Structures are given as structure tokens and as C-alpha cells.
């Protein structure tokens, strides 16, 4: 049962930041609401004030700024799927967003909300981490920018201070020769929380079947989405065939520390880090 709270609905970002500056300790911001409402309903949080961000249209834009893509915090997953900019400039993010919940959840849920929720299984986050995206946090005093990877502290915990709001996410545009794959394993094909997932972003090497740059992020396999730097290194600048791919991807199990829950055991999850990574790279190298 949802407890009683006060509601504020700022119309502009400065107004929102002003409110946070004054009441930050008590305010719970709500973007799409797909996570917050469930927590309110379950009584897991009982805020005294809720800030409805839905009127902040300035945070709903997707912009191409130089070589970077700027995505406002309130950009919905559906907006990512439908924007012509993201399709060409951030195809990996599009793949990740496509697997989020269901159409309704994608229509409601936002990138900023997904980041703030900081679920280890959040489906848009591995893409952001693999793309080395940055998050811009705004407060009345100014802005600061952090790599998404460092923004995440633990399940449900981030570097966002109570007086701050996620303003936007910045990621470098895809370049010639770059490709990605997002691979998710759930208990079913939709409305599924990831058992495990992996986002892979690579730059193809000059020689056939080589990769000159590899970025890998694992989801639902550690307290936060986690980069797989060891495997990245092992895959870089090396001729890859099916056999060597099978070998190298096995290093993935060392990169993760999953847990056992009702969806899967820790052991299965760890094996899946390998399987999903192998399938992803297979798609990138041999199927497209």
C-alpha cells in the first residue's frame, strides 16, 4: 500500500534543482515510475515527498553534439528505439533497450531512471558501460560528469547525491568499422529480468577476423554491471576463429561474481557469462 506523500512537479530543470537543493534529503524523484511505483506499492520506500519529473521536457531530447550523442535523462527506451539518431549512432544501446520489459515498460521507463535504479540486471546499462558512456549529474551548484561504470556503486546505489539529478548521458557515436551485440538470457522472451546479459562493442581490425578494440560489459553477474577487461584484452589484435573464440571466451567466468536467486544459480549464471559472450562474438564476427 502506497503511503501518503507530498508531490512536487517542477516545470523546468532549474526549478527541479532548486527543490532538490532545499529538500533533497526527503525527495524521491520519479521519472517513468516503473520501478519506483512498485517499491512504493510494496512499502519498500516511504518518501515524504515525490518529485514528478514528467514535465521536464528539456530532459527528453536526443542530440548529436559534435562526435557525441547526448541523451536526456528522461528519454524513454521507446524513444531510443525509434530515434533515427540512435539507430545509426548507438545501435548497441538500441539493442539493449529493445529487450527491456515490454512495450508499456519501454514507453514509460527512461534511461536516467534505469541508471538511477542501478539494478545489476538493468538492460540498458551494459550497453552504456560497453560504450564507455558518461553520466552528467546536475545540481544547483553545477554539473559533474562521471563514467557510467563509476557512477554505479552497488545494487540500487549510485554516486548521485540527494541534491543532484541525472541530467543526461553522453556517449561517443559509432564509428566506421564498429559493431555491437547485446545478448540477454531471461526466463522467457519478454517481461523478463535478465538471468545474465552481455553487451559487446568492437572495432573490427584491419585483418580479417581480428578486433582492434573490444569493450564488454556483463549484467546481472556482479553487484553492478561490470566490464570484462581481461577478456577484452585477450580478444584484441588476435586472429579469431571458432576454436580460439571458444577458448578465450572462457576467461569470462573469472570476470563475474553472480548470486543465486529464484531465477538461476550462481554457477549457471557464471557459465552463462561464457555462453552469452561466445554467442555475441560469433554473431559479430561470423554472422554479420
Amino acid at each position, binding site marked *: *500500500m502506497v503511503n501518503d506523500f507530498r508531490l512536487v512537479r517542477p516545470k523546468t530543470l532549474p526549478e527541479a534543482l532548486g527543490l532538490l537543493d532545499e529538500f533533497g534529503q526527503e525527495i524521491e524523484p520519479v521519472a517513468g515510475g516503473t520501478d519506483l511505483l512498485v517499491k512504493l506499492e510494496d512499502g519498500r520506500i516511504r518518501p515524504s515527498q515525490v518529485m514528478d519529473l514528467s514535465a521536464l521536457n528539456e530532459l527528453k531530447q536526443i542530440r548529436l553534439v559534435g562526435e557525441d550523442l547526448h541523451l536526456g535523462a528522461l528519454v524513454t527506451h521507446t524513444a531510443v528505439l525509434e530515434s533515427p539518431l540512435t539507430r545509426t549512432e548507438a545501435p548497441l544501446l538500441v539493442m539493449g533497450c529493445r529487450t527491456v520489459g*515490454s512495450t508499456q515498460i519501454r514507453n514509460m521507463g527512461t534511461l536516467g531512471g534505469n541508471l538511477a535504479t542501478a539494478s545489476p540486471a538493468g538492460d540498458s546499462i551494459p550497453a552504456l558501460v560497453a560504450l564507455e558512456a558518461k553520466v552528467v549529474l546536475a545540481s544547483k551548484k553545477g554539473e559533474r560528469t562521471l563514467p557510467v561504470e563509476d557512477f554505479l556503486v552497488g545494487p540500487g546505489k549510485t554516486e548521485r547525491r540527494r541534491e543532484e539529478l541525472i541530467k543526461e548521458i553522453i556517449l561517443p557515436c559509432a564509428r566506421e568499422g564498429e559493431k555491437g551485440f547485446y545478448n540477454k*538470457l531471461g*526466463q*522467457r*522472451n*519478454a*517481461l*523478463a*529480468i535478465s*538471468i545474465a546479459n552481455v553487451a559487446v562493442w568492437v572495432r573490427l581490425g584491419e585483418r580479417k577476423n581480428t578486433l582492434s578494440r573490444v569493450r564488454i560489459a556483463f549484467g546481472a553477474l556482479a553487484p553492478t554491471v561490470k566490464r570484462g577487461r581481461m577478456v577484452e584484452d585477450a580478444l584484441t589484435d588476435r586472429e579469431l576463429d571458432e576454436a580460439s573464440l*571458444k577458448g578465450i*571466451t*572462457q576467461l569470462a*567466468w573469472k570476470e563475474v561474481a553472480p548470486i543465486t536467486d*529464484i*531465477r*538461476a*544459480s550462481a*554457477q*549457471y549464471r*557464471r*557459465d*552463462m557469462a*561464457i*555462453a*552469452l559472450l*561466445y*554467442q555475441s562474438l*560469433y554473431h559479430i564476427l561470423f*554472422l554479420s
Partner: protein
Amino acid sequence: MSFRYVGKPIPRVDAREKATGAARYMTDLAFPGMLWAKVKRSDYPHALIKGIDVSKARTWPGVVAVLTWPDVPGYNGFGIVVPDQPVLCRDRVRFLGDAIALVAAQTEEAATKAAELITVEYEPLPVLEDPRAALKPGAVQIHAGGNTHQHNLVTQGDVEKGFGEADLIIENYYVTPRQMHAFLETEGGVATADPDGGITVYAGSQHSYRDQLQIARALDLNPRLIRVVSNPTGGGFGGKDEIVVQIHLALLAHHTRRPVKLWLSREESVRAGIKRHREFLYYRTGVKKDGILVANEVKIFADTGAYATLGGPVVSLSVGHACGPYRIPHVRLESFCVYTNNGISGAFRGFGVNQVTFAMETQMDILAHQLGMDPLELRLKNALRQGDLNPLGFRMDTSVGAIPSLTAVGGSELWKNRWAKKAEATLPWKRRGVGIATALQGNGLGAGRPDYGGALLRLLPGGTYEVGISCPEIGQGNTTAYAQMAAETLECSIERIRVYTGDTRKAVDSGSTSASRSVYTGGNSILAGAPTLKERLRKAAAGLLGLPEDDLEFFPEGLRGKSTSRSATLEEVAREMDRLGLSREVKSTFLWPAAEREIEGAPGLPEIIYAYNTQIALVEVDTLTGQTRVLEVVSVPETGRVINPQGLEGQADGGAVMGMGYALMEDIIMEGGYYKNTNFSTYILPTALDAPGHVTVMVEESEATGPFGAKGVGEVVCVPVTPAITNAIYDAVGVRVTKIPVTAEEAYRALADNSLLPHGGTTPHV
């Protein structure tokens, strides 16, 4: 014979109001001054109650009533077979869903808060979670009569002699999950206090008249003072056969004399609602070299949870169907229906047949592989024919559709092209397989149980007919089937039929919507009543038109002369009947044919009418993750004459997906009496993206006793698909599934050899 409505894809009579949102489900109802109710349920799976303190709840603002066991005026118990479940627990709780107190308040918030303020002092008792452990000597007794609710033992022939004759004997152990009905509308409704001292309970269920009786028993009230309206219902599947909220609603309305609404949250529905029996099955099956089955020994332990409800009959059906639709001369079939402190298990579409079909059809698949026989051929070779003695030792006198169904499946596109389809796997780590399974499902309540129906047929002055049959509409489409059969029988336009179901005031008691019985019962009841009514119409029309009765015929709007153009509309006929003092109303009754006596050792067995179904599935297994996708399913139900092909297809489509969920994902997991999945985020149902392509091929073997030759279809469509899928998994990757659901993780473990990890699938050391 050609029909006007029967056998035609008539759109559902209730479709329009459901499509426009105009249909009012019982949980949609609201009345002025309505109170909201909440139930305080047990905090422990098994405990003695040492004290209940409701004082804080009573004084919470907005609270109108807080009820505990002394407030139950009548018998403090309910249950279809044995009323062993307390309405409100007094001294003991036996599972987490047990109700201890009821709160009614002016708002939902106040009711929720007050329920939280009720404190109960407990003395926890040991928790029994495995039926086999519950049977051990020294186990704590959940009920005074012991933990065995029902024991069945059926023997036929000499099973050891049978195994002596066998060339191949296989022995396996199977486990099936605690599936949840997962109707979208959770249990709920509204009760109002009527000025005459009576109560009206609006709550979706599957048997309004029995609800009425159970409420009456608890309230110590004349049943006639209680009206139960129980449809439309947002899904039942057996889970609304037993009482869940109805008595609580009635009790609160009785005490407050105000309208009261009680509607379980999804979490509460999971906790308090009925489930499918988790069964542990031991199978030993013997076969001759040529594939002829000679012996089957089966032992079943069923977890019926804390209370009886329909556990006994469910497990009887497990025994009755344990050998599938096959001739087996020597059998020994034993079952234990056992109380535990897990969630309650009771009626669920398939009613005990799903579990044994999974086991028996897996046995058949193993036998086929070990004998090197085609799995379809092995089944055809053993399938029952009309007139055969079935494994329980009684003669199959009614229509037997096993062979027609199997034969038809053999001619299906998927079966004929299975090799080509299997070769179409898209990625190197994916493998495809095709599996087959078949089943029979008894219709009706079985031997020794009163199984009856009735219909109220009334011609209204305006020239339309009212047809009142109480079997509630739970989505399966019986309303439409009744309209079709009534229009067909009364020889009128279907627009002139108004069907009333699920309301004790408007319909005749026809029993429950369960056991694949509603169409058969209702149809036969209509057939029983219609001639009398038509006779009266004919008499009136004859006078009206001045023609001899045998020169009259019915036409869609009334009656007319066969040889003249004179005709009378139904309105005119109705008026004439009134004038003549002929009653426009007929109440018919219908009694089910039943076996003369029960099978020894198995109460309720046998049924004498069976529906048949063969299903095949094409699956694709990801050998790296263990994930299975069901790509195609073909169902070949043989359910007698099809009254409404669109309705039957709809049932088959839904049944296939439900059986697929049972095979691959659905299980209420309990540990120490606590639920590990509490709602739809952890209890996984198939979505549209999981559902296979599905084709239904109908085989119509007319059943002589059925209305227009019909039999019941609702259950058998969800049964064999489960082993068809698991057999297909074996065909694809060689993993033999003996425990369902086979999640990706479980398949992956079994698949270890195919995994990326060379070392038996375990992650490497160091």
C-alpha cells in the same frame, strides 16, 4: 444431419461487451457505502495459535468490523469433499494462507493498516513439505485423521507375472511442479446484505450453487436466503472451483449489513489460492519385444497441501489415467494424497491427468527409443479401441478416439515434414527436435458421485427464450455453446436466445464448470427440456393458425405451416400460451451416465466418457544456454462432435500454451512452507513472444450420449503437450526430462557435454 448453429464458428455471445469493456466482472462492482475488507493471514506455515489480539485494529479510524473465529455463526469450515479448512482459524494454522481475522473498513488503506495491527501469538510446529516425509512414522500430524488424506490401490491382472513376460522393463522417477492457475482476475468480489436478511455474494467462481451451500453452512443460514452470482469470471481453470473469498465476504456483509468488497492482491492470491498437485511418480513399465505393453506399476505421492478440497478426486484421476489410453493387462497402481504445510492443491484443468500423462508418455518415448520403434507406431499398437478392457478393468463402451487422433497426427504437416523441420536450426549451437504424446481425459465427476444438470427454458412474452444453466462462464465459452444448442434445439434464431449462467437466482443448478462437463451437461439439459416446451408452443400455434400440430414446423422467428404460408411469431405464440394457460417455462433435469460401481480401491473411478488428444511439438534448444523455444505445436483433439470450432480452437490454443508453461517455466517453489515466488515477476507465464505457432486438427468421433454427439474439451487440450515438448527436447539434444519444469538452467546442466565448458559443464577450477 446438417445444423444451423451447431458446428459453426459462431462468435461468442459475450464478446461484444468484453471487447468494449462494458462487461462488469464481480471485482468491478461497487455499491454505495461499500466497505473494503482485508484478511489477516498466518505468519507461519504450521503453528498453534496461542492468542489473537485485535484490539488495536478495532480502534483504528475507519474500521467497521474485525471478525475472528467466534464470529462464525455456523460451521467454521469449508471444503467441497471434507470441510476441513477453517473459515477463520481458531487454534492452529496449517499453511501461510490460512485466514485468522477479517477486517472491514471505510477505505482500503484503513483495512490494510488495521490488518497489520492484528497481533497473533504462535507456537511454531514442525513444517512438513514433502509428502513422503509426511508419511513417515513420527511425522507431526497436520490433521487429526493423520497425514494421509486418501490412499488408492488398484490392481488388475498380476503385475509381477506381467513383468515376467516382459522383454524390456524400464523404471523411472518423475516429479511435476506446483502449477498456478494464474487467472488474470484474482479472487474477489462484493457481498451485499439484502433487506430480507439474506446475502448476495458476487464473486467469480465455478459453481454458484455449491458456493451457496458452503456459505449457508458457515453462516448457519437457509441457502435460499443466499444468492450467489459467480460470473463473468476473469479466468478459473479449476482454481475457482473451491471457496476462497466467498464465505469471508458473506460473513462480513452478514455482520456489517453493508456492502463489502474483498479482492485479493496478486501476492495474496498466490499465498492463499489453490494450485496444481505436485506429484512424485515412480513408474515401472514392461513391454514385449514387439512393443506390446504387458505391465505397469505406478506409485504416486501427491502433495495436497494443508487442506483436502478436491485433492482426493484429483489423485484418483491420476490413478485412473496413469496408464494413458493404452491396453495393459497387468497393472498395480497406488497413490497417496498427503497433507503437508505447503499451499493448497486442488482442482486444476487436467485434474491429476497432466502429471501421470507426463510420466506415462515419457515412459512410452523411452520404450520406443529402446525398442527402436517409431514413437507413433508404438502408441498406435497399444491404443485402446471401443470395447477394449482398459487397464483398470472396465470396458470402454463409449467412443474411443485415441487411434483416430493418433492417425490424424501422423498425417499432419509437422509430423510428415519433421526431418526437414529439424534440419532448419538457424545457428550452430541450436538443435531441433519433434516429440509426440497422447492422452485421454475422463469427462464428468465419475462413479459414485451425483453428477447432474438442469436447464431453465423460458419463452418470454417478447418472443425470446431465456436459458438458465448455472455452470458459470469462466471464459471457456459455454454460454455461446448453450446458445447454439438451444437455438438448434428450439429451432429459432440464435438472436432469440438469452443465456443465464452462474446466478443461483436465474439458473437451474447444473453443477460445476469443471471436469470438462459444462457443455455436455448443459447441452443434454437443454435437450431434455426443449421437447416439452416445444410441445406447448406447437399446441398454442396450432390453435392460433388453425392447423394440425403435425403440419407445423419451427422457423427462426416462430412456427409456420409446412404446406401453407401461415405463420405465427414467437411473441404471438407466447401470448396464445398465456391465454391457454400453458406455462412458458420448463425446468429440465439431466443425470450423467455413470459406471454402475466404483473401481475397487479408487473412489470416484471410473469415468465412462473420455476425450482424447494427441499433440506434437517442434522445439529448438540452445545448447549453450539450455533454453528451449517451442516453435510449433499441433493438437488433434477428439472430443466428439464439435459444437463451436472457433471455441474449440480457442481452447486448444490456450491449452497448448498452458501445457507448455507447465513443461518449461511454471512452478510455485516452496521452501519450509514459504513461497519463493510471490507474484508475476517471479512466477513465469508464457507471453506472446513465447507462444508457439499452433494448429488444431479436429477429429470428430460422435459420442452417442453427448448432446449432438459432443464431449468435453476444456482439459485434454492442455495435457499431452507437456510430454510432447519434453520428448522433443530429447529428440533434439538427447536430454531425458523426468522433472518439470525443465528450465534453461536444468536443461543446461543435463546438456553439460554440449556446453562450451569441456569439463562436464562445471566452471573450471583455479
